[in-house]
């Protein structure tokens, strides 16, 4: 799941996640999307750029052992 806050500065970022992924789907580059959302610090920007969801992969095996 997407981190609620930026690891470095502690600013809340998760409330912008959905808008960000929508902008990417529209074909915008990450730079354009982040600039439009007003995420200016590079610590917060890398949170978006380097995020990879693994919940879906987990869910496939969920309940198999426990």
């Amino acid at each position, binding site marked *: *799941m*997407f981190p*609620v*806050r*930026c690891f470095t*500065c*502690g*600013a*809340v970022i*998760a*409330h912008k*996640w*959905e808008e960000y992924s929508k902008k990417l789907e529209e074909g915008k580059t990450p730079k354009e999307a982040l600039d439009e959302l007003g995420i200016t*610090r590079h610590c917060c920007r890398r949170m978006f750029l380097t995020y990879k969801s693994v*919940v*879906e992969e*987990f*869910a496939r095996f*969920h309940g198999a052992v426990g």
Partner: protein
Amino acid sequence: MKLEFVEDGELRASFILRNASAAFANSVRRAMKSLVPTMAVDYVDIYLNTSCLYDEVLAHRIGLIPLITKLDKFNMPEECSCGGEGCPNCQVSLRLNVEGPKLVYSGDFVSDDPETVPVYGNIPVVKLYKGQQLMIEAVARLGTGKEHAKYQPVSVCAYKIIPNIQVSSECSGCEECVKACPRSVLEFKDGEVKVKDVLACSMCMECVNVCSEGTIKVEETNDYLFTVESIGSMPVKNIIQKALEILIDKAKGMNETLAVLGEES
């Protein structure tokens, strides 16, 4: 000492503190960061969790969600008449009862107090797949940034010195300093080097180093530029005000202690 607001928003503000000592500027910063109380979820009762996330991971995520804080409405748990046990005057329960398939948002929490709710309703908490269930009671209380970063009312809270930049009349106008400045503080106009944007200066001293004539000087002053960003639990102005009130209280306490010590000796 004087305060001047440069930017004054609900979530972001910057102001100039004039004629203060470095110690005072730093104590204001630290008071804002670690002494102003904020509401956050501290204790989580998990009755049922069949989601992908472990209980502790889930509790941690819930703790980080900012809650709207009405400071005059709640007591600090240790100062409360209940003695820290927990009562409606010092804590709020947020309940969550959901079943998948569903993406659970911070806005799905049902709060006991309609004024103490998550600042943003669209923070994804966990994704539930078919058959996964959550039954949670999260208990929020007041705390300070000293205790845990989730109680900090600010994210960015920093200050820097506003320098005094002087160019003497012997300057030949080679423009080296204008080119060297990484923040374009200086400009060359009417045959003179002028200061365009002194607030942007980070005192990197690049202009002084590059000047072969030694005609530019950057000096420290007693003015500080603060930048404060709220996480949304309360407006920045309230945070600044509360921090200053706390500092006044602390100074009064210190004076009383000193007076007692003076009597004893």
